[in-house]
Protein backbone atom coordinates (compact mmCIF):
# COMPACT_ATOMS: atom_id res chain seq x y z
CA UNK A 1 0.00 0.00 0.00
CA UNK A 2 1.21 3.48 -0.84
CA UNK A 3 2.31 5.48 2.17
CA UNK A 4 -0.09 8.25 3.12
CA UNK A 5 0.11 10.80 5.89
CA UNK A 6 -2.17 10.48 8.92
CA UNK A 7 -3.97 13.58 7.77
CA UNK A 8 -4.72 12.16 4.34
CA UNK A 9 -6.10 8.94 5.81
CA UNK A 10 -8.37 10.82 8.21
CA UNK A 11 -9.46 13.07 5.36
CA UNK A 12 -10.32 10.08 3.17
CA UNK A 13 -12.30 8.33 5.90
CA UNK A 14 -14.39 11.38 6.70
CA UNK A 15 -14.80 12.47 3.11
CA UNK A 16 -16.12 9.09 2.06
CA UNK A 17 -18.70 9.04 4.88
CA UNK A 18 -21.93 10.95 4.69
CA UNK A 19 -22.75 10.19 8.33
CA UNK A 20 -20.79 11.61 11.25
CA UNK A 21 -17.99 9.23 12.30
CA UNK A 22 -17.16 8.86 16.00
CA UNK A 23 -13.56 9.67 16.91
CA UNK A 24 -13.00 6.16 18.23
CA UNK A 25 -14.10 4.46 15.02
CA UNK A 26 -12.15 6.94 12.96
CA UNK A 27 -8.95 6.36 14.90
CA UNK A 28 -9.36 2.60 14.77
CA UNK A 29 -9.89 2.55 11.01
CA UNK A 30 -6.86 4.79 10.51
CA UNK A 31 -4.71 2.83 12.94
CA UNK A 32 -4.15 5.89 15.10
CA UNK A 33 -4.70 7.06 18.63
CA UNK A 34 -7.84 9.10 19.11
CA UNK A 35 -5.80 12.18 20.02
CA UNK A 36 -3.84 11.86 16.76
CA UNK A 37 -7.05 11.65 14.78
CA UNK A 38 -8.38 14.79 16.47
CA UNK A 39 -5.10 16.61 15.84
CA UNK A 40 -5.35 15.67 12.16
CA UNK A 41 -8.83 17.14 11.99
CA UNK A 42 -7.51 20.45 13.32
CA UNK A 43 -4.65 20.41 10.81
CA UNK A 44 -7.00 19.67 7.93
CA UNK A 45 -9.47 22.39 8.86
CA UNK A 46 -6.64 24.92 9.05
CA UNK A 47 -5.55 23.91 5.56
CA UNK A 48 -9.09 24.20 4.18
CA UNK A 49 -9.38 27.63 5.66
CA UNK A 50 -6.10 28.75 4.12
CA UNK A 51 -6.84 27.21 0.74
CA UNK A 52 -10.36 28.55 0.55
CA UNK A 53 -12.08 25.16 0.43
CA UNK A 54 -15.87 25.05 0.34
CA UNK A 55 -16.14 22.63 3.27
CA UNK A 56 -14.94 22.02 6.82
CA UNK A 57 -14.91 19.06 9.17
CA UNK A 58 -17.44 19.74 11.91
CA UNK A 59 -18.22 18.08 15.20
CA UNK A 60 -21.72 16.69 14.79
CA UNK A 61 -23.77 14.25 16.86
CA UNK A 62 -20.88 12.71 18.74
CA UNK A 63 -18.69 12.41 15.66
CA UNK A 64 -17.05 14.30 12.83
CA UNK A 65 -18.54 15.18 9.48
CA UNK A 66 -17.68 17.17 6.38
CA UNK A 67 -20.14 19.98 5.68
CA UNK A 68 -20.10 22.90 3.26
CA UNK A 69 -19.89 26.46 4.55
CA UNK A 70 -23.40 27.82 5.19
CA UNK A 71 -22.62 30.91 3.10
CA UNK A 72 -22.60 28.75 -0.02
CA UNK A 73 -26.14 27.48 0.46
CA UNK A 74 -27.58 29.86 -2.12
CA UNK A 75 -25.67 28.06 -4.85
CA UNK A 76 -26.63 24.61 -3.64
CA UNK A 77 -30.39 24.87 -3.74
CA UNK A 78 -31.77 22.22 -5.99
CA UNK A 79 -28.67 20.06 -6.03
CA UNK A 80 -28.07 19.28 -2.37
CA UNK A 81 -30.70 17.30 -0.53
CA UNK A 82 -30.36 19.11 2.75
CA UNK A 83 -30.66 22.68 1.61
CA UNK A 84 -34.24 22.49 0.41
CA UNK A 85 -35.38 20.47 3.42
CA UNK A 86 -38.64 21.54 4.98
CA UNK A 87 -38.47 23.26 8.28
CA UNK A 88 -40.17 21.85 11.35
CA UNK A 89 -43.47 23.30 12.50
CA UNK A 90 -43.68 25.49 15.61
CA UNK A 91 -45.44 22.72 17.46
CA UNK A 92 -42.68 20.27 16.54
CA UNK A 93 -39.95 22.68 17.61
CA UNK A 94 -41.58 23.47 20.95
CA UNK A 95 -42.13 19.80 21.65
CA UNK A 96 -38.56 18.95 20.66
CA UNK A 97 -37.27 21.70 22.94
CA UNK A 98 -39.20 20.20 25.84
CA UNK A 99 -38.01 16.67 25.06
CA UNK A 100 -34.41 17.83 24.68
CA UNK A 101 -34.31 19.57 28.04
CA UNK A 102 -36.52 17.31 30.12
CA UNK A 103 -35.72 13.89 28.71
CA UNK A 104 -36.70 11.24 29.47
CA UNK A 105 -40.21 12.65 29.47
CA UNK A 106 -43.71 11.27 29.03
CA UNK A 107 -46.41 12.51 26.69
CA UNK A 108 -48.54 13.72 29.60
CA UNK A 109 -45.71 15.84 31.01
CA UNK A 110 -45.18 17.46 27.61
CA UNK A 111 -48.87 18.19 27.38
CA UNK A 112 -48.85 19.77 30.82
CA UNK A 113 -46.20 22.24 29.67
CA UNK A 114 -47.68 23.06 26.27
CA UNK A 115 -51.32 22.90 27.34
CA UNK A 116 -52.31 20.96 24.22
CA UNK A 117 -52.38 17.36 23.05
CA UNK A 118 -48.97 16.11 21.97
CA UNK A 119 -49.75 12.77 20.35
CA UNK A 120 -49.81 14.00 16.75
CA UNK A 121 -46.54 15.88 17.11
CA UNK A 122 -44.87 12.96 18.85
CA UNK A 123 -45.82 10.69 15.97
CA UNK A 124 -44.30 13.07 13.48
CA UNK A 125 -41.11 13.39 15.50
CA UNK A 126 -40.81 9.63 15.96
CA UNK A 127 -41.19 9.07 12.26
CA UNK A 128 -38.61 11.73 11.49
CA UNK A 129 -36.34 9.86 13.93
CA UNK A 130 -35.78 13.05 15.91
CA UNK A 131 -37.05 11.43 19.10
CA UNK A 132 -37.20 7.85 20.30
CA UNK A 133 -38.95 5.77 22.91
CA UNK A 134 -36.42 5.33 25.69
CA UNK A 135 -38.18 3.61 28.56
CA UNK A 136 -41.10 3.85 30.93
CA UNK A 137 -41.78 6.11 33.89
CA UNK A 138 -42.07 4.41 37.26
CA UNK A 139 -45.42 5.99 37.93
CA UNK A 140 -49.01 4.84 37.68
CA UNK A 141 -49.74 3.52 34.22
CA UNK A 142 -46.01 3.29 33.46
CA UNK A 143 -46.21 5.69 30.51
CA UNK A 144 -43.60 5.55 27.74
CA UNK A 145 -40.77 8.04 27.97
CA UNK A 146 -39.25 9.90 25.05
CA UNK A 147 -35.77 11.25 24.38
CA UNK A 148 -33.85 12.81 21.52
CA UNK A 149 -31.78 10.82 19.02
CA UNK A 150 -28.46 11.10 17.19
CA UNK A 151 -30.46 12.34 14.20
CA UNK A 152 -31.78 15.17 16.37
CA UNK A 153 -28.22 16.41 16.96
CA UNK A 154 -27.37 15.99 13.30
CA UNK A 155 -30.49 17.84 12.19
CA UNK A 156 -29.62 20.85 14.35
CA UNK A 157 -25.90 20.58 13.64
CA UNK A 158 -25.05 20.00 17.31
CA UNK A 159 -22.02 18.11 18.62
CA UNK A 160 -24.00 17.05 21.69
CA UNK A 161 -26.86 18.15 23.95
CA UNK A 162 -24.65 20.38 26.08
CA UNK A 163 -24.37 22.69 23.09
CA UNK A 164 -27.91 23.83 23.66
CA UNK A 165 -28.13 26.87 25.94
CA UNK A 166 -28.65 26.10 29.60
CA UNK A 167 -32.03 26.87 31.11
CA UNK A 168 -30.42 29.35 33.49
CA UNK A 169 -29.12 31.30 30.52
CA UNK A 170 -32.59 31.45 29.10
CA UNK A 171 -33.85 32.71 32.42
CA UNK A 172 -31.65 35.76 31.86
CA UNK A 173 -33.10 36.44 28.46
CA UNK A 174 -36.57 36.08 29.83
CA UNK A 175 -35.95 38.35 32.79
CA UNK A 176 -34.43 41.07 30.67
CA UNK A 177 -37.46 40.91 28.51
CA UNK A 178 -39.61 41.44 31.54
CA UNK A 179 -37.42 44.29 32.70
CA UNK A 180 -35.99 42.39 35.60
CA UNK A 181 -32.55 41.05 36.33
CA UNK A 182 -31.83 37.72 37.83
CA UNK A 183 -28.30 37.81 39.07
CA UNK A 184 -27.26 34.18 39.24
CA UNK A 185 -25.72 34.26 35.77
CA UNK A 186 -23.11 36.68 34.57
CA UNK A 187 -24.07 38.95 31.69
CA UNK A 188 -22.52 38.23 28.33
CA UNK A 189 -23.09 34.52 28.76
CA UNK A 190 -26.21 34.60 26.71
CA UNK A 191 -27.49 32.18 24.21
CA UNK A 192 -25.57 33.56 21.27
CA UNK A 193 -22.51 31.95 22.69
CA UNK A 194 -24.38 28.77 23.50
CA UNK A 195 -22.70 26.27 21.21
CA UNK A 196 -19.28 26.84 22.70
CA UNK A 197 -20.55 26.26 26.20
CA UNK A 198 -19.41 22.87 27.40
CA UNK A 199 -21.33 22.54 30.60
CA UNK A 200 -23.81 19.74 30.79
CA UNK A 201 -27.41 20.48 30.40
CA UNK A 202 -29.43 20.38 33.57
Amino acid at each position, binding site marked *: MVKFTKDTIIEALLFA*SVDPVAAGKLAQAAGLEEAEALASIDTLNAQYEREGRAFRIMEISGGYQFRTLPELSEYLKGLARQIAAHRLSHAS*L*ETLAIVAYRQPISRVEIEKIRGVSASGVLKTLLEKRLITVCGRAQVLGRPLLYGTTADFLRYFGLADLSHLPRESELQVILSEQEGRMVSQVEPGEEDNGGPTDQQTLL
Partner: protein
Amino acid sequence: MEDYQVHLDFFEGPMDLLVYLIRKHEIDIYDIPIVLLAEQYLEYVARIENLNLEKAGDFLLMAATLLQIKSRMLLPRPEGSEEEWEDPRMELVEKIVEYMQFKEIADHMRRLEDLSSRQAERGFSEMELYAQEEGEDPGIDATVNELILAFSRVLIRQRTPEPVHRVRREKISAARRAAEIRELLGRKNRVLFSDLLSEGASRLFVVVTLVALLEMAKSGEIRVEQADIFSELWVLRHKLRKDLPALGAEEPEDVDEAEGPPLED
Protein backbone atom coordinates in the same frame (compact mmCIF):
# COMPACT_ATOMS: atom_id res chain seq x y z
CA MET B 1 -58.99 46.58 16.04
CA GLU B 2 -56.89 44.88 13.41
CA ASP B 3 -55.99 42.72 16.33
CA TYR B 4 -59.28 40.92 15.97
CA GLN B 5 -58.03 39.52 12.73
CA VAL B 6 -55.75 37.32 14.77
CA HIS B 7 -57.49 33.99 14.74
CA LEU B 8 -57.48 31.51 17.54
CA ASP B 9 -56.04 28.76 15.39
CA PHE B 10 -53.05 31.02 14.91
CA PHE B 11 -52.04 30.03 18.43
CA GLU B 12 -50.43 26.73 19.33
CA GLY B 13 -52.70 26.46 22.34
CA PRO B 14 -53.94 28.27 25.44
CA MET B 15 -50.42 28.84 26.78
CA ASP B 16 -49.38 30.40 23.51
CA LEU B 17 -52.37 32.75 23.61
CA LEU B 18 -51.60 33.73 27.20
CA VAL B 19 -48.00 34.55 26.32
CA TYR B 20 -49.19 36.59 23.36
CA LEU B 21 -51.53 38.62 25.55
CA ILE B 22 -48.88 39.13 28.21
CA ARG B 23 -46.44 40.47 25.65
CA LYS B 24 -49.04 42.57 23.88
CA HIS B 25 -50.15 44.31 27.07
CA GLU B 26 -46.62 44.37 28.48
CA ILE B 27 -47.86 42.59 31.55
CA ASP B 28 -45.46 41.95 34.40
CA ILE B 29 -45.82 38.20 34.74
CA TYR B 30 -44.90 38.35 38.42
CA ASP B 31 -47.90 40.58 39.11
CA ILE B 32 -50.50 39.59 36.58
CA PRO B 33 -53.65 41.72 36.52
CA ILE B 34 -55.78 38.63 36.39
CA VAL B 35 -59.04 40.44 35.66
CA LEU B 36 -57.58 42.05 32.56
CA LEU B 37 -55.89 38.88 31.40
CA ALA B 38 -59.01 36.77 31.88
CA GLU B 39 -61.13 39.32 30.02
CA GLN B 40 -58.72 39.50 27.12
CA TYR B 41 -58.40 35.76 26.99
CA LEU B 42 -62.13 35.21 26.99
CA GLU B 43 -62.54 37.68 24.16
CA TYR B 44 -60.46 35.43 21.99
CA VAL B 45 -62.00 32.22 23.20
CA ALA B 46 -65.47 33.60 22.56
CA ARG B 47 -64.57 33.49 18.90
CA ILE B 48 -63.95 29.76 18.84
CA GLU B 49 -65.60 28.62 15.67
CA ASN B 50 -63.51 26.56 13.39
CA LEU B 51 -61.41 24.78 15.95
CA ASN B 52 -61.75 21.06 16.34
CA LEU B 53 -63.30 19.78 19.54
CA GLU B 54 -60.06 18.82 21.17
CA LYS B 55 -58.33 22.13 20.59
CA ALA B 56 -61.38 24.10 21.65
CA GLY B 57 -61.48 22.02 24.83
CA ASP B 58 -57.89 22.97 25.64
CA PHE B 59 -58.72 26.66 25.31
CA LEU B 60 -61.87 26.34 27.41
CA LEU B 61 -60.02 24.51 30.16
CA MET B 62 -57.62 27.44 30.51
CA ALA B 63 -60.56 29.87 30.51
CA ALA B 64 -62.00 27.97 33.45
CA THR B 65 -58.64 28.11 35.24
CA LEU B 66 -58.41 31.88 34.74
CA LEU B 67 -61.90 32.42 36.05
CA GLN B 68 -61.17 30.26 39.05
CA ILE B 69 -58.04 32.25 39.87
CA LYS B 70 -60.00 35.46 39.41
CA SER B 71 -62.65 34.37 41.87
CA ARG B 72 -60.06 33.23 44.40
CA MET B 73 -58.35 36.62 44.14
CA LEU B 74 -61.64 38.23 45.16
CA LEU B 75 -61.92 36.22 48.35
CA PRO B 76 -60.97 38.22 51.44
CA ARG B 77 -57.49 37.39 52.67
CA PRO B 78 -57.24 36.05 56.20
CA GLU B 79 -56.39 38.98 58.48
CA GLY B 80 -52.86 39.41 59.77
CA SER B 81 -51.64 36.36 57.91
CA GLU B 82 -50.37 38.16 54.83
CA GLU B 83 -47.27 35.99 54.99
CA GLU B 84 -49.22 32.79 54.78
CA TRP B 85 -51.46 33.94 52.00
CA GLU B 86 -50.81 31.88 48.93
CA ASP B 87 -51.13 33.79 45.73
CA PRO B 88 -53.69 31.93 43.59
CA ARG B 89 -51.80 33.10 40.51
CA MET B 90 -48.58 31.38 41.54
CA GLU B 91 -49.10 28.06 39.80
CA LEU B 92 -50.16 29.72 36.58
CA VAL B 93 -47.21 32.10 36.66
CA GLU B 94 -44.80 29.21 37.05
CA LYS B 95 -46.37 27.47 34.11
CA ILE B 96 -46.19 30.58 31.96
CA VAL B 97 -42.55 31.19 32.83
CA GLU B 98 -41.71 27.59 32.03
CA TYR B 99 -43.57 27.77 28.74
CA MET B 100 -41.87 31.05 27.80
CA GLN B 101 -38.52 29.42 28.40
CA PHE B 102 -39.35 26.65 26.01
CA LYS B 103 -40.55 29.13 23.42
CA GLU B 104 -37.20 30.83 23.81
CA ILE B 105 -35.40 27.53 23.32
CA ALA B 106 -37.58 26.74 20.32
CA ASP B 107 -36.59 30.08 18.77
CA HIS B 108 -32.97 29.28 19.38
CA MET B 109 -33.43 25.85 17.82
CA ARG B 110 -35.03 27.47 14.81
CA ARG B 111 -31.81 29.41 14.29
CA LEU B 112 -29.77 26.25 14.67
CA GLU B 113 -32.05 24.48 12.20
CA ASP B 114 -31.61 27.31 9.75
CA LEU B 115 -27.83 27.27 10.04
CA SER B 116 -27.58 23.50 9.91
CA SER B 117 -29.85 23.27 6.89
CA ARG B 118 -27.51 25.57 5.01
CA GLN B 119 -24.53 23.32 5.58
CA ALA B 120 -24.70 20.60 2.96
CA GLU B 121 -23.47 17.15 3.86
CA ARG B 122 -21.57 15.10 1.33
CA GLY B 123 -24.18 13.95 -1.18
CA PHE B 124 -22.68 10.68 -2.32
CA SER B 125 -21.61 8.08 0.21
CA GLU B 126 -18.65 6.02 -0.89
CA MET B 127 -18.72 4.35 2.50
CA GLU B 128 -22.15 2.98 1.68
CA LEU B 129 -20.65 1.28 -1.37
CA TYR B 130 -18.02 -0.36 0.79
CA ALA B 131 -20.58 -1.28 3.42
CA GLN B 132 -22.59 -3.00 0.72
CA GLU B 133 -19.55 -5.02 -0.24
CA GLU B 134 -19.46 -6.25 3.33
CA GLY B 135 -22.97 -7.59 3.08
CA GLU B 136 -25.64 -7.52 0.40
CA ASP B 137 -28.00 -5.69 2.71
CA PRO B 138 -25.88 -2.88 4.17
CA GLY B 139 -28.31 -2.75 7.06
CA ILE B 140 -29.12 0.09 9.39
CA ASP B 141 -28.08 1.35 12.77
CA ALA B 142 -30.75 -0.33 14.81
CA THR B 143 -32.36 1.83 17.46
CA VAL B 144 -35.53 1.24 19.43
CA ASN B 145 -37.29 3.35 16.80
CA GLU B 146 -36.17 1.06 14.00
CA LEU B 147 -37.15 -1.97 16.04
CA ILE B 148 -40.69 -0.83 16.69
CA LEU B 149 -41.11 0.41 13.14
CA ALA B 150 -39.99 -3.01 11.88
CA PHE B 151 -42.50 -4.71 14.15
CA SER B 152 -45.32 -2.44 13.04
CA ARG B 153 -44.55 -3.31 9.44
CA VAL B 154 -44.90 -6.98 10.39
CA LEU B 155 -48.23 -6.27 12.03
CA ILE B 156 -49.42 -4.34 9.00
CA ARG B 157 -48.60 -7.19 6.68
CA GLN B 158 -50.32 -9.66 8.96
CA ARG B 159 -53.44 -7.66 9.40
CA THR B 160 -54.02 -6.47 5.89
CA PRO B 161 -56.88 -8.86 5.11
CA GLU B 162 -58.36 -8.70 8.60
CA PRO B 163 -61.86 -7.76 9.72
CA VAL B 164 -60.52 -4.57 11.27
CA HIS B 165 -60.73 -3.03 7.86
CA ARG B 166 -64.17 -4.37 7.24
CA VAL B 167 -65.23 -2.68 10.44
CA ARG B 168 -63.81 0.56 9.15
CA ARG B 169 -65.66 0.30 5.91
CA GLU B 170 -68.89 -0.63 7.62
CA LYS B 171 -71.36 2.13 7.15
CA ILE B 172 -72.63 3.70 10.31
CA SER B 173 -75.64 5.71 9.37
CA ALA B 174 -78.02 7.57 11.61
CA ALA B 175 -80.89 5.52 10.22
CA ARG B 176 -79.22 2.25 11.11
CA ARG B 177 -78.39 3.55 14.56
CA ALA B 178 -82.00 4.67 14.97
CA ALA B 179 -83.16 1.18 14.08
CA GLU B 180 -80.81 -0.26 16.72
CA ILE B 181 -82.09 2.13 19.36
CA ARG B 182 -85.64 1.34 18.33
CA GLU B 183 -85.03 -2.34 18.76
CA LEU B 184 -83.50 -1.76 22.17
CA LEU B 185 -86.47 0.33 23.24
CA GLY B 186 -88.79 -2.33 21.91
CA ARG B 187 -87.40 -4.69 24.47
CA LYS B 188 -86.79 -2.35 27.38
CA ASN B 189 -89.10 0.64 26.94
CA ARG B 190 -86.46 2.89 28.38
CA VAL B 191 -82.68 2.97 28.27
CA LEU B 192 -79.97 5.07 29.85
CA PHE B 193 -78.40 7.54 27.45
CA SER B 194 -74.94 6.52 28.63
CA ASP B 195 -75.70 2.89 27.87
CA LEU B 196 -76.27 3.80 24.25
CA LEU B 197 -72.70 5.02 24.07
CA SER B 198 -70.90 2.49 26.18
CA GLU B 199 -69.84 0.09 23.47
CA GLY B 200 -66.31 1.46 22.97
CA ALA B 201 -67.81 4.44 21.27
CA SER B 202 -65.62 6.34 18.83
CA ARG B 203 -66.39 10.00 18.41
CA LEU B 204 -68.06 9.19 15.14
CA PHE B 205 -70.28 6.69 16.87
CA VAL B 206 -71.23 9.27 19.48
CA VAL B 207 -72.14 11.79 16.82
CA VAL B 208 -74.23 9.30 14.88
CA THR B 209 -76.03 8.23 18.04
CA LEU B 210 -76.79 11.81 18.96
CA VAL B 211 -78.09 12.57 15.51
CA ALA B 212 -80.24 9.45 15.54
CA LEU B 213 -81.70 10.44 18.92
CA LEU B 214 -82.37 13.98 17.77
CA GLU B 215 -84.18 12.70 14.71
CA MET B 216 -86.23 10.29 16.76
CA ALA B 217 -87.10 12.95 19.31
CA LYS B 218 -88.11 15.33 16.57
CA SER B 219 -90.44 12.81 15.03
CA GLY B 220 -91.97 12.16 18.42
CA GLU B 221 -90.85 8.60 18.51
CA ILE B 222 -88.88 8.99 21.71
CA ARG B 223 -88.73 11.23 24.73
CA VAL B 224 -85.66 12.17 26.78
CA GLU B 225 -86.05 12.62 30.51
CA GLN B 226 -83.91 13.60 33.41
CA ALA B 227 -84.73 13.61 37.12
CA ASP B 228 -82.67 16.70 37.80
CA ILE B 229 -80.01 18.75 36.10
CA PHE B 230 -77.00 16.58 36.81
CA SER B 231 -78.60 13.17 36.78
CA GLU B 232 -78.53 10.59 34.05
CA LEU B 233 -80.54 11.01 30.87
CA TRP B 234 -83.18 8.44 30.13
CA VAL B 235 -84.37 7.71 26.64
CA LEU B 236 -87.98 6.48 26.56
CA ARG B 237 -90.37 5.28 23.93
CA HIS B 238 -92.70 8.16 23.60
CA LYS B 239 -95.94 6.21 23.55
CA LEU B 240 -96.17 2.63 24.50
CA ARG B 241 -98.31 1.88 21.55
CA LYS B 242 -100.23 -1.22 22.42
CA ASP B 243 -101.00 -1.89 18.83
CA LEU B 244 -97.36 -2.60 18.12
CA PRO B 245 -95.65 -5.92 18.71
CA ALA B 246 -93.07 -5.68 21.45
CA LEU B 247 -90.03 -6.18 19.30
CA GLY B 248 -90.57 -3.24 17.03
CA ALA B 249 -90.81 -5.50 13.99
CA GLU B 250 -92.81 -2.89 12.23
CA GLU B 251 -90.46 -0.08 11.40
CA PRO B 252 -91.46 3.34 10.22
CA GLU B 253 -91.81 3.45 6.45
CA ASP B 254 -89.06 5.98 5.95
CA VAL B 255 -86.22 3.81 7.22
CA ASP B 256 -85.02 2.43 3.92
CA GLU B 257 -85.35 5.67 2.16
CA ALA B 258 -83.54 7.36 5.02
CA GLU B 259 -80.68 4.87 4.83
CA GLY B 260 -78.65 8.03 4.74
CA PRO B 261 -75.17 8.72 3.46
CA PRO B 262 -72.48 6.51 4.91
CA LEU B 263 -70.31 8.17 7.47
CA GLU B 264 -67.16 6.23 6.90
CA ASP B 265 -64.57 7.16 4.32
